[in-house]
């Protein structure tokens, strides 16, 4: 076991616990439990807001999988990863002030609250709650597996013990602290990610003998590595560009991101978050993926992509520093997991239980159920992650794309297009998820339709469905002032 690496990571985890505990004391004195537990009482400042969005969004894939693919594909994959910079400003600009105003007027705490108030339809609520619970539960389980693998590779613990350690850390502070704990720890974790990637990038450039040297090594090995087209020349411009939808503008439709756009205190925090979010997303994405490419000449022949970052950190940094830097992917995974956990449990408690099962529940009951559901979900994910069933991996494959196709138009057009109604919303969600699943199978069988990522057409089709059904069935202008 590598103690020099392990100790900084443990200190980091203790720090995170401490923040969770501190937030929970604030929660105990709160007068509005639901809004506080699930939304941090709408009082996030600019820095915390930006960091929590970056940290939620930056998951195992941006810290382990993405750089691992960049290692194999070269600069073309860094180009692809940079499409994510747009999320730094786009989500907050598009949902923006109107979402903040409407969410307060509707007293919405979750994205589904917003949809419920806007469309006034039981079907919309149940359909959205169901897709959130199924897709995000699977996405969360996949992240847990990633977290456990990382602990496993760093500590030499068995997979099951690593998973247990990970589960306990996440559960304790999400359960006690709620959204504010998650948002605050996200801020710390975001800062760790930012600093960690900078240190590692510099170390890798030194180890490789400077950028010109590294690039020359790459050209000597395979000139395709420095083109935008990937190591085998098979990354087409159309395919890479379609990631603008999947990881760029489509992110507006992800419930765990959208909920953050209703949690800020005032216009000033939103303005600051726009600037900080853009800078931090850009720096992290650029650094992490460049590290992946630059690692290639230094440590050739790594065949498991997820191992590139841990291995290169251990190779180029002193052990204690590697421990701190490797806390970054750990932070990314934990902060994604905790937000997903909170979104899924808010869907169950808020959107299903309080709306339809027992609307008159007392505060004490709500509190008990919120803690209970969050803890139960965590234990459920833990059990599933011990031996992941095929269905879980299958659902996770289209968790993000499917949710984007389902929610982007009901949310965005619900905000800005007065003719949008519940028939449009229902049709849009069903079309989005349905065509996404169908196209997924088609693409698997015959290769990507027209060479673009699966998410592209379902997003377009669900737009058509939204507009067509809104105009055809009971067309009526929505009064935003009512």
């Amino acid at each position, binding site marked *: 076991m590598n103690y020099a690496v392990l100790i900084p990571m443990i200190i980091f985890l203790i720090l995170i616990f401490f923040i969770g505990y501190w937030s929970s004391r604030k929660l105990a004195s709160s007068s509005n439990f639901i809004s506080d537990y699930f939304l941090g009482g709408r009082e996030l400042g600019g820095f915390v807001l930006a960091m929590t969005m970056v940290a939620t969004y930056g998951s195992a894939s941006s810290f382990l999988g993405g750089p691992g693919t960049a290692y194999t594909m070269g*600069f073309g994959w*860094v*180009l692809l990863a*940079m*499409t994510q*910079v*747009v999320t*730094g*400003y*786009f989500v907050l*600009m*598009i949902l*923006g*002030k*109107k979402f*903040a*105003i409407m969410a*307060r*007027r509707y007293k919405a705490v979750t994205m589904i609250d917003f949809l419920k108030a806007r469309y006034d339809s039981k079907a919309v609520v149940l359909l959205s709650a169901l897709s959130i619970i199924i897709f995000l539960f699977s996405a969360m389980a996949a992240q847990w597996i990633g977290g456990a693998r990382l602990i496993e590779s760093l500590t030499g613990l068995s997979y099951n013990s690593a998973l247990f350690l990970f589960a306990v850390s996440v559960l304790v502070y999400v359960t006690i602290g709620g959204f504010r704990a998650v948002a605050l720890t996200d801020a710390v974790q975001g800062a760790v990610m930012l600093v960690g990637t900078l240190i590692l990038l510099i170390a890798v450039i030194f180890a490789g003998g*400077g*950028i*010109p*040297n*590294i*690039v020359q090594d790459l*050209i000597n090995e395979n*000139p*395709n590595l*420095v*083109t*935008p*087209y990937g190591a085998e020349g098979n990354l087409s*411009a159309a395919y890479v*560009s379609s990631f*603008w939808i999947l990881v*760029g*503008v489509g992110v507006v439709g992800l419930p765990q991101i959208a909920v953050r756009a209703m949690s800020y205190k*005032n*216009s*000033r925090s939103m*303005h600051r978050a*726009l*600037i900080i979010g*853009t*800078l931090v997303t*850009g720096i992290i994405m*650029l650094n992490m993926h460049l590290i992946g490419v630059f690692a290639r000449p230094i440590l050739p022949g790594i065949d498991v992509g997820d191992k590139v970052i841990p291995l290169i950190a251990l190779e180029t940094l002193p052990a204690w520093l590697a421990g701190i830097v490797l806390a970054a992917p750990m932070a990314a995974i934990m902060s994604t997991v905790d937000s997903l956990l909170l979104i899924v449990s808010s869907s169950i408690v808020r959107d299903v239980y309080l709306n339809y099962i027992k609307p008159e529940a007392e505060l004490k009951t709500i509190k008990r159920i919120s803690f209970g559901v969050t803890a139960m979900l965590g234990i459920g994910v833990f059990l599933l992650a011990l031996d992941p069933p095929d269905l879980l991996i299958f659902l996770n494959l289209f968790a993000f794309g499917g949710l984007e196709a389902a929610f982007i138009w009901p949310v965005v057009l619900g905000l*800005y297009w*007065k003719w949008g109604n519940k028939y449009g919303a229902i049709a849009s969600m069903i079309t989005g998820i349905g065509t996404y699943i169908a196209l997924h199978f088609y693409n698997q069988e015959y290769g990507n339709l027209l060479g673009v990522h699966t998410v592209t057409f379902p997003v377009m089709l669900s737009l058509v469905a939204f507009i067509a059904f809104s105009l055809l069935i009971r067309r009526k202008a929505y*009064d*935003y*002032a009512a």
Partner: protein
Amino acid sequence: MNETDWRFKIAHREALIGVGLALFNFVWWFGFAYGMGSAPVEEYTYVFGLPAWFFYSCVVGFLVIAVLVMVIVKFFFVGVPFEEEEEEKR
């Protein structure tokens, strides 16, 4: 209070700015990457050791967008109250 809530005008304008910025971002990113990157590797030029297409598309592109976001937020975005009560006090 009706549909012409004064805050909505501001919100709508800012959302449109967001769409415009994303379009500009895409054109910049795509133009440099595939405009310069599709030449044969032997003809590539390099800036700070990075292939020029990558440097202009991803590094400079990111910096340009970051500066634009700062300028837009500072000079074109207007602060509005979010709470209903604050609005009535106006």
